[in-house]
């Protein structure tokens, strides 16, 4: 029997949530920034450990604070991808607080943290930013080049099935 899981992508506006989904589902990327209104749904079927898994991906409009998002959007989520922009400190300054909030409303859902737009910084600069954030397990991705995008969705899928 096919399994489906609801995954929400959250984080500040302009961090590249929609671009990550576009890259993951449609293998496309555009440099133009177009804000998301409310929520937009997409889906992709994955093979995880020889089982077919449908990811129903909720692309939720970015907000500086997750508590501003209607709770109904987060309702029933099986997994969370928290995305920030590695070039904009304001998108990760309140990371710990935001993650604590998400854990409080979705205690069973695994959360993966993504530092997107890695293509804009050198490896040394990325390392400096990530060291400063003091949070383990952050994955730097680039929706533009596709680096680590597939991997992070697959990692979350694995965690949701575990």
């Amino acid at each position, binding site marked *: 029997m096919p399994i489906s899981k609801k995954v929400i992508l959250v984080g500040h506006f302009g961090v590249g949530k929609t671009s990550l989904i576009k890259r993951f589902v449609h293998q496309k990327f555009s440099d133009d920034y177009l804000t998301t209104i409310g929520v*937009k749904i997409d889906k992709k079927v994955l093979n995880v450990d020889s089982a077919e898994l449908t990811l129903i991906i909720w692309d939720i409009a970015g907000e500086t604070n997750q508590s501003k998002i209607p709770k109904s959007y987060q309702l029933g989520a099986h997994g969370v991808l928290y995305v920030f922009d590695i070039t904009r400190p304001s998108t990760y300054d309140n990371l710990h607080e935001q993650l604590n909030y998400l854990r409080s409303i979705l205690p069973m859902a695994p959360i993966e943290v993504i530092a997107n737009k890695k293509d804009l910084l050198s490896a040394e600069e990325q390392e400096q930013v990530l060291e400063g954030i003091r949070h383990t397990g952050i994955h730097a991705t680039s929706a533009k080049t596709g680096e680590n995008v597939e991997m992070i969705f697959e990692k979350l899928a694995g965690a949701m099935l575990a």
Partner: protein
Amino acid sequence: MKLDIDQIKLNSFRDQAQVTFFEPGGALVDSCHSLVIIDAEESLYEQFVFLESLKEVFITMEVGDEHDFPAVEWDEGAQGLYHLKFKRLDHDGQPLIQWTMIDKTQDYEQLLNLQQGRNDKAIGEEFALIQKRMAEVEHELLSYQNEELMRIQQFKSDFFAQVSHEMRTPLNSISGLVSLVLEDEEKAEEYLPALKATSRHLNAIINDILDLSKIDAGKLSFESIDFDLVELSHSIIKGLEFSALEKGISLNLALPEGPLLVKADPTRLAQVLYNLLGNSMKFTEKGYVSLSVSTAASAVDPQKLLFEIEDTGIGIDPDKIASLVQPYQQAEDKTARLYGGTGLGLHIALKLVEAMGSQLEIRSALGQGTKMSFELELQKGAHPQHTEEVALNLEGRQILVAEDDLLNRKIVQEILSKAGAKPVVVDDGLSLEKALNESDFELLVTDINIPGKTGYEVFKALRNRGNEMPVLFISGSELELIKELKAYTHWDFAIKPLNIHDVRKKISDLLPKAYPTEVNMQSLLDMIAGDTAFFNDLVQTILDTLPQEMEKLMNSAKEADAVACTKVLHKIRPSIDYMGIPELTKERHWLHAQAEAGKLDNHFHNRLADFDPWVKQALQKLAKELS
């Protein structure tokens, strides 16, 4: 006409809203289908991904629970922006979900513009803030660099002030002594030792500065020469004995038994020991200064050697030891006034020890003397080959000397006179040209910067006239003109301060020698057991091939092709050896070794330039022998 407001309202919004009832399990109960067509035969979860993702939520909703989704970008059966509401009902005991869908697509553009504008503005402001912060950091960095530049500038000013001060004293003495000599040339002999000592002191200061700049630029290179460390230590102590005697202090030396043969750079090691011992002596008024060299296990290679320099001098405040090793630093300002010196010596010694892979340790206390030590790992060496004293006989040789500096002129004259020559001496470029035009000379010794005309210009003019007279340049530093001079042969240079042995050797090397050309074919005859026909055949082969090989060799040397030179010099070995001239055999061997080591320097070219006519003369003798 009757106005039915409810009907009008219903008609206006009928197409903009849809109400659907479905069971929490997904079966359709009823719908008005005004926005999306729903298939009654199929579960709603199969038809709409949005609903599928909320399946677990719908099943667990309690009667009266409501969930509101104010804005959903919908793309299932219809496309647009919708407001979705879900409410759990109980209809005659049947659990139902009421799904209300309101079309807000006409508001999409306005919402998008508002939100896009807000987000763009916030992102723009953030980047502006980041740029401002970066500009501030850059500004701070520039301020820091500016301060650093000012510090360096100040350091340079202090350096030049101190060094100029240090150089002024010996320079004034030299100038005064030269004036005295000029006034009364007969007293030159009397003043020369003082002039020599003062020049040596000035030279030491300049060498220190040059060494320091080499160390700072990381251009210091170390030689690896076999020498006896015991012998070196004795000679260093010997050099300081007079000063120690003058000050009334003891100079002690503790060394291991017998020779201590090592392979290292004796000049640099001696420089370290001289600087450290000299420093100790400067600050010791009574008691002793000692040098001790000890080794733990002599059988180990490389062996560890501990060098210790101890004195009973004024000592250093332990807090000031760290600053002491900085260049131009002395522990107290008054130290420089009392004891003099640039303060470079200790810094140079420290840097040299570091460059040799060790650390200089300084232990001291005010009034209780100082102990400095360092440990070196040195490879065991062989017995050093002492340079042979060159026997120089210049009796009857016509030699021209062009030098404006009185001291150097005296030194060169002394060397030449002692070798039996009576050189013609001039002190400017015009006199030099005149002398060259009037007489024939066998050797010219000239300062590279003779007033009125440079030594190089005179040299070039000579060569352009086809005059191959050997020339020894005297220069204050490594010749910058070496590149240009490489096109010529029969020249060399000696660096000031002149080293008598070096000058003697170079003059000896430059002067044309009487090359033995008497061929001795006996060994060849013996080898072929007296077969005359075969002998003639072999000699003819030498006569045919050697000139061609020599031409190849000269061309390869001209192109500075060391590999080609090595090949030819190897190939001609039998021909040269068969001619039975030991000196010629030895010379080919030397040239081959030089070429093989890639050393196609001016010595190689000078000797090759003599080797070529030497071989030709020998070949003429060989041809005669054959006829």
